[in-house]
């Protein structure tokens, strides 16, 4: 029955090559933790992606209750955490997941660095990886403000002040981040938009490029 459905679709759309290309590509022995335990260091990249998926899913559920407005942001997070079924788990996954994502990304970067995997011909993929790191830090910075508690507010204020002290460009960066002259209502709306639309879009685009390049070039050989 399933086979018949698949054949019916495949005859019209020729979908087999699409997934076959992903499924059949070869994974060498030296990155396989089933053969060499120490190869778990090659899992950090996959685990980072796994945490990103957790962040996207938990973030989607958080957005069902969160209100990006200075009057209601804190209240909605409190409601979400104390009243909504499983709310504390979903927020916990997103909150701790943010830190774990940075840790995993850091470990993945160190693995690539110390195994010299960024060398010819994989220079470009390393650059894309660094941009992903930068976007992830941006996600961490913008997400920190959203609960609108004292910690969030003052950390953002200090962060914007630091960015504002950069010569020449500083005031423009500060105005761009704040959406005005102070950290306030417009800043929250702006950080929300950056956190859920702009930066995730950039992240997904960069991740796509990262994966296409690694698929095209194959993983670097054993040391």
């Amino acid at each position, binding site marked *: 029955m399933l086979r018949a459905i698949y054949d019916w679709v495949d005859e019209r759309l020729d979908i087999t090559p699409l997934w076959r290309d992903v499924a059949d590509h070869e994974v060498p022995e030296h990155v*396989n933790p089933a053969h060499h335990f120490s190869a778990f260091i090659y899992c950090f990249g996959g685990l980072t992606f796994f945490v990103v998926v957790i962040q996207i899913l938990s973030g989607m559920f958080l957005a069902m209750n969160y209100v990006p407005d200075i009057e209601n942001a804190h209240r909605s997070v409190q409601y979400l955490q104390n009243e909504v079924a499983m709310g504390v788990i979903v927020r916990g996954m997103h909150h701790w997941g943010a830190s774990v994502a940075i840790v995993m990304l850091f470990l993945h970067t160190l693995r690539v660095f110390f*195994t010299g995997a960024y*060398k010819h011909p994989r220079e470009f993929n390393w650059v894309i990886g660094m941009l992903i790191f930068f976007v992830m830090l941006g996600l961490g910075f913008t997400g920190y403000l959203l609960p609108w508690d004292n910690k969030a507010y003052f950390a953002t204020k200090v962060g914007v002040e630091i960015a504002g002290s950069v010569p020449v460009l500083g005031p423009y960066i500060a105005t761009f981040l704040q959406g005005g002259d102070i950290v306030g209502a417009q800043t929250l709306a702006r950080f929300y938009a950056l956190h859920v639309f702009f930066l995730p879009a950039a992240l997904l685009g960069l991740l796509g490029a990262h994966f296409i390049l690694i698929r095209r070039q194959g993983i670097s050989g054993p040391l």
Partner: protein
Amino acid sequence: MANNQEGNHKQVHYVGDSHVRADRSKLYPKDYDEFPGKTEPFLPNFLLKEWMVAVVFLVGFMTLVMAEEPPLGEFADPTNTSFLPVPDWYFLFLYQLLKHKWAAGDFVVVGTMIVPGIAFMALLFAPWLDRSKERRPLKRPVATGIMIITLVAISALTWAAEYEHEQQLLSAPGETPENTEIAAKDSKGYDIYAKNACIKCHGENLEGTNGPGLLGVGNKLSADEISKIIAEGRGTMPAGMFQGSPAEEKILVEWLTKQTQK
């Protein structure tokens, strides 16, 4: 299109009027015998193994999530002047860098642009800075050495920032309990407290002025811990602020342990 007319007589069939060819050859999985070592296909063989690693990771992660409730502080209050701002832990090293004299004030550009800029650019362009073909970390000591020094510096800065923040928290006024009535204010304990330097920082009503408030201190600290702080100081409080006799100190400590306001 002249070539097609002459050479290729093979008829191409399509599915309906689409671009999908009707006479496609079947795709078979590759034969991995010819690959070196124990090479295997990505799906499902390898992905199942990687999923095992992910499951171990997920169990640890969910244990953390269930053990520690995500923190949510008080509603943001821009007029709060005593709140100690602290960024998320992965920004702490940058934050700490700016506390150094050579990276603050007139030289703030060193801390905001030059040091982080050089570090980030060096990282971004690492493939062009480290151009040798050698990949083993011990065979390229410059790259490995710089990275290890950077890691040590980041760890040290993060640790220093965390330590300083904790020290500041200990010395900050902190939150006032709902009940602000001093226990046994007419006793000798309060007289000793008022006679010594204590009252200058901890306040006439134990509310805390330059130092932390002492209302409810009896809930947090034992008598031994209090006398240790009196003798050795803590945070910004130096040692030897209390000038009274040991007998007076005993009365003072006993009186402080009675401050159990909530």
